């Protein structure tokens, strides 16, 4: 039994290689003689397989080389949205990015997502991001009496906001936006995606409350269609299209 298992392992062996991860670290406490709040690059060598993701490499570093490395992750399967980071200068989920797709021959740079205050290493303060999401009231606001059974909706009506229901609040879009980098007041792509999900929902009646909020100076009109958000979204949401639809609802007055 054991012999058979060993044999299959050799036959189906996954290609393995050494990768270098260059991580932008942030030390809030100033350990090892550093200034508190010091930022520095640190390189780690990791033995990895072709099936390994950036998250696996980060685990290998934290568990086997340097336990002080701090990063967020929860489900590790691209659903919870905890491990968005800037990998090779692009926002991605560490758990959805295979090392072999990133040219492992060169060092892979890993930085915290930009535009939010860094707390430690790859962990940022997500509160400004969540505050914008709360501002657009991401909950059903129906009018009239509560029905005795489900609120029905036609497949066509459901289709209108289908794309924006995929959002996992990982902040990859908002922190890839050049407008958000320079103006933290901007709601950011994610809050607009969150609003879009309810604005175009036929069961919801709070669309004009949300549109009024997004018509603000720091709202949708800050979008300069740079398309960074659409390219960053790990869920493949057409973020710029959603923002564009909100803009059109505001200019035409029709939802």
């Amino acid at each position: 039994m054991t012999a058979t298992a060993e044999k299959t392992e050799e036959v189906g062996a996954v290609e393995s290689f050494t990768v270098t991860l260059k991580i932008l670290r942030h030390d809030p406490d100033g350990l090892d003689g550093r200034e508190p709040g010091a930022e520095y690059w640190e390189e780690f060598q990791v033995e990895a397989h072709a099936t390994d993701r950036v998250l696996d490499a980060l685990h290998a570093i934290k568990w086997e080389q340097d336990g002080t490395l701090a990063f967020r992750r929860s489900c590790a399967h691209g659903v919870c949205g905890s491990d968005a980071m800037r990998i090779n200068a692009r926002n991605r989920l560490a758990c959805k990015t295979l090392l072999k797709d990133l040219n492992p021959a060169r060092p892979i740079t890993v930085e915290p997502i930009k535009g939010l205050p860094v707390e430690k290493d790859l962990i940022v303060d997500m509160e400004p991001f969540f505050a914008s999401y709360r501002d657009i009231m991401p909950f059903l606001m129906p009018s009239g009496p509560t029905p005795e059974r489900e609120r029905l909706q036609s497949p066509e009506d459901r289709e209108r906001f289908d794309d924006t229901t995929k959002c996992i609040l990982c902040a990859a879009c908002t922190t890839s936006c050049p407008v958000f980098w320079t103006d933290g007041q901007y709601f950011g792509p994610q809050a607009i995606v969150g609003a879009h999900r309810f604005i175009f929902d036929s069961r919801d009646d709070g669309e004009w409350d949300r549109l009024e909020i997004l018509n603000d100076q720091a709202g949708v009109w800050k979008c300069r269609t740079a398309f960074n958000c659409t390219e960053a979204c790990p869920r493949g949401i057409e973020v710029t299209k959603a923002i564009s639809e909100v803009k059109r609802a505001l200019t035409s007055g029709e939802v």
Partner: protein
Amino acid sequence: MWMWVVHRATGVAIFFFLLVHVLDTSLVRVSPEAYNEVIGAYKTPIYGLIEAGLVAAIVLHAFNGLRIIAVDRWTWALRRQRMLVWIVWGIFAVLMAGFLPRHLMHVFGGA
């Protein structure tokens, strides 16, 4: 994002051109001689090259502006914005290929 940067940079450059342009044109009210002197300086080769840059900035800003309008207006264009970027650069290359030889002949040919 790079087209956004190009649009910003060319926009600021064109703004400064307009500022200078308003100033030099209003000089004619101050003194026609001073106006002639300043305008005469624009005939030197260095200003010829700056002029070429100005035309390049305006062509890029104009056609990328049309691209942004299309992207704002139609979902079809929004989904093909990358292709439209290459079309903008294509139009830019064609127009500059027509303009630059003629312009540089004027600047350096002495005619």
